[in-house]
């Protein structure tokens, strides 16, 4: 099942994407897709809905964040072995956890607003895990039972802000640094999250190309690990790290985003995103 939210920011409605890829209005069944929608029982009820019984949505509405009311946006640093090699960094012995401000969340095709004083705006295509039920000290074996589904994330980063101090959060939480979606794809469609191809282009040029099979710590491990350090709540998001090809590590010198650039990205089964970079307001 591919769930989404469509409409203007702040007044999105629940939607469902049918087998033919058409957007249908789910708001007669659930008013919104929020933390309470993600419980396995509720998702099972939605899965029983015949998509053809839902009205088709006309036109091309904006797509919003696929889940409303996200309370934590956790992210994992340096989680692809090929990315670690490219960055010439040691493979970390344990996952590195940081957090993105929830105010950074935005729709998958919303513009990326370059912050003031930003000179090193960068991209990171990532598989995002969306939590479906409360989890604390979850075992690896049970971890996927706590997952409602997956979506595509661009972990937009400002490297100068990120690396100015020891703590990365400052370069990760600016408004529009958290495009999520277009869809929340439930786990029945993604039976193996460790074999998904992913890519990211800037202005049509392939920058990142990878597969979730080279994750150092797989989804199961990450959900279990994070739940040892904080309680996971329904709707929480874990972005699981990025494969090689970020702008910071381009040779012979880094490449960063500038106003007018177009970023497109995709993960197999999870759809695509497209963002245009907008100059900071004076």
């Amino acid at each position, binding site marked *: 099942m591919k769930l989404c939210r469509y409409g203007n920011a702040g007044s999105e409605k629940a939607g469902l994407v049918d087998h033919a890829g058409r957007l249908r209005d789910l708001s007669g069944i659930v008013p919104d897709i929020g933390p309470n929608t993600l419980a396995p029982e509720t998702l099972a009820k939605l899965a029983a809905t015949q998509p053809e019984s839902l009205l088709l949505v006309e036109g091309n509405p904006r797509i919003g964040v696929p889940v409303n009311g996200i*309370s*934590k946006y*956790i992210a994992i*640093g340096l989680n692809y072995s090929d990315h670690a090699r490219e960055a010439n960094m040691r493979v*970390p012995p*344990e996952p*590195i*956890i*940081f*957090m993105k*401000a*929830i*105010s*950074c969340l935005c729709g998958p095709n919303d513009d990326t607003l370059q*912050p*003031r*004083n930003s000179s090193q705006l960068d991209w990171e295509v990532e598989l995002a895990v969306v939590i479906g039920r409360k989890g*604390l*000290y979850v075992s690896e074996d049970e971890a996927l039972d706590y997952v409602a589904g997956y979506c595509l994330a661009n972990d937009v980063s400002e490297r100068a*802000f990120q690396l*100015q*101090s*020891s*703590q*990365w*959060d*400052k*370069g990760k*939480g*600016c*408004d529009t640094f958290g495009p999520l979606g277009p869809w929340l794809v439930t786990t029945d469609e993604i039976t193996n999250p460790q074999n998904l191809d992913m890519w990211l282009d800037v202005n049509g040029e392939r920058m990142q190309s990878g597969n979730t099979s080279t994750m150092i710590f797989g989804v199961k491990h990450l959900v279990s690990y994070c739940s*040892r*350090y*904080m*309680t996971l*709540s329904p709707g929480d998001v874990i972005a699981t790290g990025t494969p090689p090809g970020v702008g910071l590590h381009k040779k012979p010198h880094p490449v960063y985003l500038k106003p007018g650039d177009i970023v497109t990205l995709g993960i197999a089964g999870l759809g695509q995103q497209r963002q245009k970079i907008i100059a900071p307001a004076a």
Partner: protein
Amino acid sequence: MKLCRYGPGGHEKPGIIDSNGKLRDLSLIIDEIGPGRLEPRKLRALAAAVKVEALPLVEGHPRFGVPFTGTGSYIGIGLNYSDHAKEADLPIPDEPIIFNKATTSICGPYDDIVQPKNSKMLDWECELAVVIGARAQYVSEDDALKYVAGYCIANDVSERGFQFQSTQWKKGKSHDSFGPLGPWLVTTDEIPDPQALEMWLDVNGERMQKGTTRTMIFPVKKLVSYVSEYLTLLPGDVIATGTPPGVGMGIKPAPVYLKPGDVVTLSISGLGEQRQKVVPFPGP
């Protein structure tokens, strides 16, 4: 005004503290103290409208909850007291160090601190917390305090083993019960100068931390302005502004950490007191 929320976890009601320090029921006037209520203009209107001494007294000794709801970002500031930096033998940072605490760590001011599994280095940090009242992005230092709803005490409970396992501190800052806030949200009219507040923290009655917000490296208005450059602050967001000297990790000759049964009490002038008992994680 001293606003609070009282009652069992998840069922708190809004309350207000009168001039004698007594708790009164505010639920007839407002149904919740949440982001929609924190705008300074609305708080002033509430202060003008409410006759505190006319509200019903609350009987008994209810639990105090977090004094407001709807925190989206809980930001901590690292190493923000010059005397603490000296004690820790660390250079004074050029710019504020920002990190996030998970909002699921937030709890009432007297709730137990639950020691996580595998925790051996559980520590305390008495801090002045700033509560945001209005959406703030790129606000100047001069304007910054206009975006503040009020202040409260925070204990930025930290697990040093987890905090320093990787470069990123969040992992040691975010467990359930690591974010006691309150007992009150004290509105800015009562705290005209947030840089002149005395603060202390005791463990089992022994004074561990003692300081004043005067020795902050970056004062409240700088912090609000600075953080608003990097993320949009929303009503209900919290900035914990760093801790003065005397954390367990820095005690000589050997660090001292919390263990089950310990009692932590802490206070900041004008903001009341907190008290937490440390308990082991229940269950296997």
